[in-house]
């Protein structure tokens, strides 16, 4: 899988202009993933600076409102990390976080937020290198999507109810063009959106 | 009736003709329906991998693609030659694990109008199929002429149980399955530690000193254990020990006469087939004297005079008696013999 480099991969700059630096929030749990981040620090493993970490006691503490607030306040991406399933310090609360996040994903995707902007990462306290690598990967994936700019210039929002429904049905991040003819068609059925 | 798609491989058509003949004879009684892949090609043996891995995988994958198309009501591809088996199994496994490789290989295959979906075909070795799918009991039921205590050294060769990417073997170094199969035929299986050691492969061409030494070790161990013959699953191993035994003897100034037969030939004998039908007598180091001991005649025209001793054999090394300290229990002992 990952090699033992101490630098997480830096992606290519998007075409046209200087590299866009996403601003992201990362929720970590006190016992595993926050300690993994600390371990990456003590081992001086380098990764991109785009993720700003928040410490929770447990990933189970994650209220979906936190994620939505982060996007609303201008985050281009959100990362949620916790202990590996089966190793949660509070026994099984990370499973509850997983459930919550799965449902939350459907909501955010229906709102027009690409799946890659909300990512889940399990990391144990001993996995500093892995934490760094995964943060690097997630940053590059968000970078490739460009700024979310949600609520700022509307460029990314679906723009209409029909388009939002179509987005949820097709899973495509580009809203389909809405023509007058479309409006009279019945809304497409909501397909199963996988987490 | 167990149905399989069958990949013979180049050796089965020439130097290991006896393996193919004996397999054909016994597949009926064993209930194996083997349908050969249409228009199969060489598996690349061991050389091509060293030259260009990607092309080698593509060469092998053509066979997998043809097998997928042909199916024959079964998704299991059986190979009898150990090297063919290893190439097919390894390639199948790598295609499943590495999507980039699979994409590259399929690009090449598509140029020939073929495509292989990784995971569509299970690749297994003939020995393991006989042991697992047919079963020891079924083999035993077909034995009409037990081998009367013929002393055999079970030589698997290095490729059957290694790398074993699909984890079918419990023991890679000292599997017991082969021994059990041979015992079911009525043979007496001697203690043969180098059962999965290397036969030298193509070292006979590249560095004869190395090749002959490896062959000598096998023959010597079988001889010391008092075996009448070696029994093997691999055409390469058979050829090395058989065709190069004389040269090995000259090199070391020894006088071994250790015949080596394919296990399918012994199964055929136990099932009552005549020796000619099983290709017995076509080997270079003749098995005539060994088989004569259990009352099987080989026609004189194809027999050879044995070069040296080897009939009586030295006394076996006795194993420690259980009157001493107890041995640790091995997994599955007294419950189910380990493989």
């Amino acid at each position: 899988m990952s090699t033992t480099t101490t630098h997480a991969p830096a992606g290519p700059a998007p075409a046209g202009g200087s590299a866009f630096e996403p601003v992201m929030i990362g929720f970590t749990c006190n016992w595993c993933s926050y300690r993994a981040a600390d371990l990456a620090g003590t081992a001086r493993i380098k990764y991109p600076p785009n993720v700003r970490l928040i410490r929770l006691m447990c990933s189970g503490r994650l209220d979906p409102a936190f994620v939505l607030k982060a996007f609303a306040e201008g985050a281009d991406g959100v990362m949620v990390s916790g202990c590996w399933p089966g190793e949660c310090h509070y026994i099984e609360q990370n499973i509850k976080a997983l459930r919550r996040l799965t449902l939350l994903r459907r909501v955010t995707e229906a709102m027009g937020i690409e799946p890659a902007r909300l990512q889940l990462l399990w990391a144990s306290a001993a996995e500093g290198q892995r934490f760094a690598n995964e943060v690097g990967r997630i940053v590059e994936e968000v970078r490739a999507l460009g700024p979310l700019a949600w609520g700022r210039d509307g460029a990314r929002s679906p723009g209409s109810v029909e388009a939002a429904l179509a987005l949820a049905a097709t899973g495509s991040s580009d809203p389909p063009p809405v023509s007058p003819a479309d409006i009279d068609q019945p809304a497409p059925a909501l397909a199963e959106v996988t987490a | 009736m167990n149905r399989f798609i069958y990949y013979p491989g180049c050796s089965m058509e020439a130097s290991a003709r006896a393996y193919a003949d004996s397999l054909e004879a016994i597949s009926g009684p064993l209930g194996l329906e083997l349908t050969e892949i249409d228009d199969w090609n060489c598996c690349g043996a061991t050389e091509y991998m060293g030259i260009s891995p990607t092309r080698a995988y593509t060469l092998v994958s053509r066979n997998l693609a043809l097998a997928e198309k042909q199916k024959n009501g079964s998704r299991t591809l059986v190979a009898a030659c150990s090297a063919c088996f290893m190439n097919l199994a390894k390639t199948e496994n790598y295609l499943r694990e590495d999507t980039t490789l699979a994409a590259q290989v399929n690009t090449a295959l598509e140029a020939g109008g073929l495509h292989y979906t990784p995971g569509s075909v299970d690749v297994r070795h003939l020995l393991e199929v006989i042991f697992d799918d047919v079963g020891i009991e079924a083999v035993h039921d077909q034995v009409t002429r037990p081998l009367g205590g013929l002393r055999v050294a079970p030589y698997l060769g290095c490729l059957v149980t290694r790398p074993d990417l699909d984890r079918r073997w419990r023991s890679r170094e000292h599997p017991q399955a082969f021994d059990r199969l041979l015992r079911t035929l009525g043979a007496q299986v001697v203690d043969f530690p180098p059962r999965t050691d290397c036969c030298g492969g193509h070292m006979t061409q590249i560095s004869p000193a190395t090749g002959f030494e490896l062959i000598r070790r096998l023959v010597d161990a079988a001889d010391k254990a008092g075996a009448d013959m070696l029994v093997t699953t691999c055409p390469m191993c058979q050829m090395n020990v058989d065709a190069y035994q004389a040269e090995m003897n000259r090199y070391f100034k020894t006088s071994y006469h250790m015949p080596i037969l394919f296990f399918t030939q012994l199964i055929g004998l136990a099932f009552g087939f005549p020796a000619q039908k099983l290709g017995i007598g076509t080997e270079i180091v003749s098995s005539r004297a060994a088989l004569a001991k259990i009352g099987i005649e080989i026609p004189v025209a194809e027999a050879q005079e044995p070069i040296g001793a080897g009939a009586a054999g030295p006394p076996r090394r006795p194993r420690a008696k259980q009157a001493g300290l107890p041995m640790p229990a091995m997994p599955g002992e007294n419950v189910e013999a380990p493989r």
Partner: protein
Amino acid sequence: MSSAQERIGVYVCHCGSNIAATVDVEAVSEWAGQELAGRGVVVARDSKFMCASSGQELIEKDIEELGLTRVVVAACSPHMHEKTFRGACARAGLNPYLCELVSIREQVSWVHSDRAAATAKAKAVIAGGVLRVGEHVPLEPLRVPINPTTLVVGGGIAGISTALEIADAGFPVHLVERQPSIGGHMAQFDKTFPTLDCAACILTPKMVDAGMHKGITLHTWSEVTDVKGYVGNFTVTIKERARYINAELCTGCGICQEKCPIRVQDNVFEAGLGFRKVAYMPFPQAVPKYPVIDGPNCTYFEKGTCKACEKFCPTNAIDFNQVDRDVIVEVGNIVLATGFELFDARRIEQYGYGRLPNVFTSLEFERMSNAAGPTNGRIVLRDGVTEPRSVGIIHCVGSRDRNYNSHCSAICCMQSLKFAHLIGDHTDATVHNFYIDIRAPGKAYDEFYQRVLEEGTIFVRGRVAEVTDSLRLPAEADAEGRLIIQVEDTLVGRQRRIPVDMVILAAGLEPPADAKETARLFGISCSSDGWVIERHPKLDPVATMTDGVFAAGCALGPRDIPASVSNGAAAAARILGRIQQKEMAIEPVRATVDEARCSGCRICNDLCPYNAIVYHADRAVTEVNPALCQGCGTCVAACPAGAISGTGFSDAQILSQIEGLLMVSASGQLREVVPA
């Protein structure tokens, strides 16, 4: 904004050059003082080492002179110095929970190389801390009483030492052991390195002390099956398995053992090398001295006949109707001393253990060499009779090996040297040791290595490829049943085939097979390979992350006897300190339900793994039991009415922190925040 109403002090640490080399600390401090003034910051300073007394005095002075109501320190990880800065605030009269430590070291300066980006991120992190701290409320730590009784799980040398330290100080201990007797692996050994003290001679006095101590209640042939509660107040269920011997009547005379007609291979104490009866005492010096009847192998249980033990017992102590019984104890602290298991050498087929008769494991050899063992101390081959002319000892079997265990098992080098010496003592055999490195770090350990060298042991540096009976060269066939060790002698640069009569495998140490279940039972973490994780590998090696649960000995990882004893003493000292203080302060991170806002929807009820959530049907509201709550916050997040709040990590605090973190762009400019 809540923070604007406070008077916040921001302190940015250089940490020498650890932070300052990558983050422009002065610029950040200045920026905080200016740009965050509107958010409540009244003073912003930077200092070389905030954790030093000079740094802490800065904070204390500002609290007193400037009337600070909140403090934000930007320095290392909270796991390092949160307590330090809380302490400074407390000394100056400010509630310590009104202080927030944000990490700009482990999570900024140490992991990013671009100075501009790191400085920008540091600003964002501080902004997050400032907005968050505005939502902090003063908290008091919870004080819990400490029950003076202690539970020690595991009766090996570590467990026995711990129990004796605590009991000698006058406090009661329950010592639980799975086997019929305490003593653990040390009771199996012959001599201990480097002094060559007889293991039983130094261990049995301690075992007897523990057995006879008024303060220690022994539960042998027992296991812990349930643990409830929290530090100072654990309720533990111990299952005492049926021995079929009535301990009140048994005198330990041993007649039942003598008369029992069934012999089985003893895979526990004799490591498979010897036999025991079905009614047995594991070894003569067993504590307690009551035997045990091995139910599954007993003729009476199988067929209803025999009962020889009952016939001959002079005190009628045999009771076939005995059943397992549960004992519930209340304890304040728990020490896990569950020890190790030996690596299963059968897994390395190339070494032939289990196939080749004369390949032995280290534990088998300990029993063989032991004068009270199955061969009365004679070193012999598996036939029980022949003395070996040469022995090969293979180090690192199953250790330092990515195929099995990457770790070093710490004691096997010394153990292998000991074996070399003992073989020389008991026989005339030539001894070869096959090693990768010789690890002899302890007191008099290297001197012991030198001694073994001088005694004529031959050392070959190389990892053994194979132990085989497949001979190749005529010279190898000079004797029956010989083994060949195939090894690369790296110092000579050649492959060697060395004939030996006997091979001893220095098998590595592994955690017990049920380590993960044990961890779950006691609510602690173990690493992916199964060793208990200590609170800090350097500075807190016997505490776990769970308050009240400690660990000692090999449960934490491979270590020798002096280290295990020290661990036990350390855990005991910590516990005795707690017991003396009679109560302990624990972090007030808890959930509480505001009953006025609770609608009784009960969504939260099934979420708590500690059963801390209780529904009161009469009032149709839910309550969280603060004693059982561990503060994970899952119920806080789940409540649709927002009726549950979590102290220390409230919604308001997190939402403010999010806002603060996003106030600063990637280049360090204040962003215009569009209202959500």
